[in-house]
């Protein structure tokens, strides 16, 4: 019969005949599943890293900034003294009605022990910056060398679409400058003059704001981001902006 199964010549379905790749992916899946049950937190840390690591191969290829300026906020160290805001305002001529960096306060009344957290926020110098896409005149742009989201003030028409586009409320219109004002990691006021850190990072008495080059494995920011002992996260990850400001505790 034509449809009869040829039992003698049928390939064995044991391990020897299983392709290598298939075996490997099966093992991986097993590890993953075990991971979920053995310690959900471990998995979540690993997946977090996937999301926030700015130096995965594809990220490096797509956003090849050198130096790749970045900041890690050690959130639980912040005591809301606001010296960073003060230093920032002085260094960058920030208007008294605006700010480039801010400290948010989060209260968790049901928490045991500490109930109050302070979260430092600033421009996240996003790799996929929504403001840069939205600006009609390229008045705000990604610096191709260092990845900082810059302002070409003279081109700003003041439509404020970037203020709305920004997921981090990092922009405001500065009357005196006749343009949008925002954090540029103190590029014009400090980095371009040879200083190594931003004004806020230097002013912080608690070492909350670690500033550095994410493309340099010897830098503190690189080390803080590339580890799995402590959680590392970014804010508003769902917006897809791929920010360069990371958060951690400890």
């Amino acid at each position: 019969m034509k449809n009869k199964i040829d039992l003698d010549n049928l390939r064995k379905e044991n391990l020897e005949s299983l392709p290598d790749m298939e075996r490997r992916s099966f093992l991986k899946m097993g590890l993953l599943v075990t991971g979920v049950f053995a310690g959900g937190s471990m998995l979540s840390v690993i997946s977090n890293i996937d999301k926030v690591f700015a130096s995965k191969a594809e990220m490096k290829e797509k956003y090849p900034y050198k130096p790749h300026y970045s900041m890690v906020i050690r959130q639980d160290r912040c005591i809301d003294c606001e010296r960073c805001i003060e230093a920032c305002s002085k260094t960058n001529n920030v208007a008294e009605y605006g700010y480039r960096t801010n400290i948010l306060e989060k209260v968790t009344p049901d928490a045991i022990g500490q109930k109050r957290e302070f979260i430092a926020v600033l421009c996240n110098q996003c790799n996929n910056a929504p403001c840069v896409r939205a600006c009609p005149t390229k008045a705000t742009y990604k610096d191709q060398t260092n990845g900082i989201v810059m302002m070409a003030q003279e081109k700003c028409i003041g439509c404020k679409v970037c203020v709305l586009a920004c997921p981090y409320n990092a922009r405001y219109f500065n009357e005196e400058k006749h343009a949008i004002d925002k954090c540029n990691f103190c590029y014009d006021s400090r980095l371009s003059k040879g200083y190594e850190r931003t004004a806020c990072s230097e002013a912080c008495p608690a070492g909350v704001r670690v500033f550095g080059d994410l493309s340099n494995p010897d830098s503190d920011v690189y080390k803080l981001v590339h580890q799995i002992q402590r959680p590392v996260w970014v804010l508003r990850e769902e917006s897809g902006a791929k920010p360069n400001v990371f958060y951690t505790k400890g």
Partner: protein
Amino acid sequence: MANGYKTLRASTVVTGVAKSLDASFFAEWASVVRDLLSGSKSFYLMILLGAAIVYFAAMGGLDAMRMGYRHAYAVTREIPWGILISTYIFFVVTSTGLCIVSSIGHVFGVKNFMPIASRAVFLSIVTIMAGFTVIFFEIENPFRMAIYNLISPNLTSNIWWMGTLYGAYMVFMIVEFVMLLLKQHRFAMYAGLLGLVSGIVAHSNLGAIFAMLHGREYWYGPYLPVYFIASAIMSGCATIILFTWVAYKASNREMEEPMKKSMEAIGKLCTMMIAVLMFFTSWKLITGSVAGGGKVEAIRAMMAGPYAMNFWVFEVGMGMVIPFGLFLMSKWKDMKMMAVATFMMMVAIFIMRYDLVLIGQIVPSWHELGVSDYPQLLSYTPSLHEFAVVLGGMGMVAISFMLGEKVFKGHKSEDH
């Protein structure tokens, strides 16, 4: 009629235009001046009133410029777009809608839509100009826009596309109107087609400005660019019905039979578009009610929060349900009833734009983080300066409409 032209060449346009510029043409235009001087007392009174509004609005706008918009307008860092943006949208939605409705007759040859073409094209030019005027007083550096839009374009920016295409759109519409006056209907048709295409693309880009802000849940998604086109058609129908009724009423003229037929056809299209908008609005609410945190918050503000009255009374009641009923009752023949319906719609559409712009901003961007620095919902109330500019835009449209009726003799020249 200039039907003999096979291809559209510059030389044919020139000869066509030259042909129209004969003695009778100038005689006709000389009579315009006479007409302008022969208006009734109430006509001049209305013009005077409109002029006064525009004058005070201009003073208000200039005063705001002098003070700085940060002091004059109620917009903030968290709510940077207020009533001026929504008024701009209101005007350009109306303009695009009028262009679409006029094109049904003029570009696509549907007879019942022809009698309104001239008035619709004229009003579409007037409303886009009013929109540009309002946005001139909204943007902080409007003069830079003219320069850098040209020499530093960002092709990924919806605002760039919208601004550029609306600029082109206005030129096409003006050319179309001039060609209509010169009775060069074939050229008018081409200009109308170009105006239609650029207007629609510009308008959906206006929707996309909001729809592509990926940090703003309430706006984000493909909904708005499509919705904007649908609601433009509805606005266009409502506007032309209302203004045609006012034009006939004010000049004590009996509506001609073709115009009555035209009103009936446009009334029916308007009714259908209301139904379409009902679907859009219903599904926005229903899908939004199961969305992420920020969007649910915004939808709640609209249904049962600070924007509930705007939504239920104006958007739903005056914008959709009541006019829908009035249209059905009028059987699209009772002009007075249709006028009432469309007047209500115009008011409601203005509020619709306002809600669309504001509700997208009232949920603070740190909502999900649960920080205590911001209230649950941010609030915004327009300032006097903002109201002044809004009124100025409306005054501009009113004056231009009245003068247009006189100068273009009630847009009667649709004898094709």
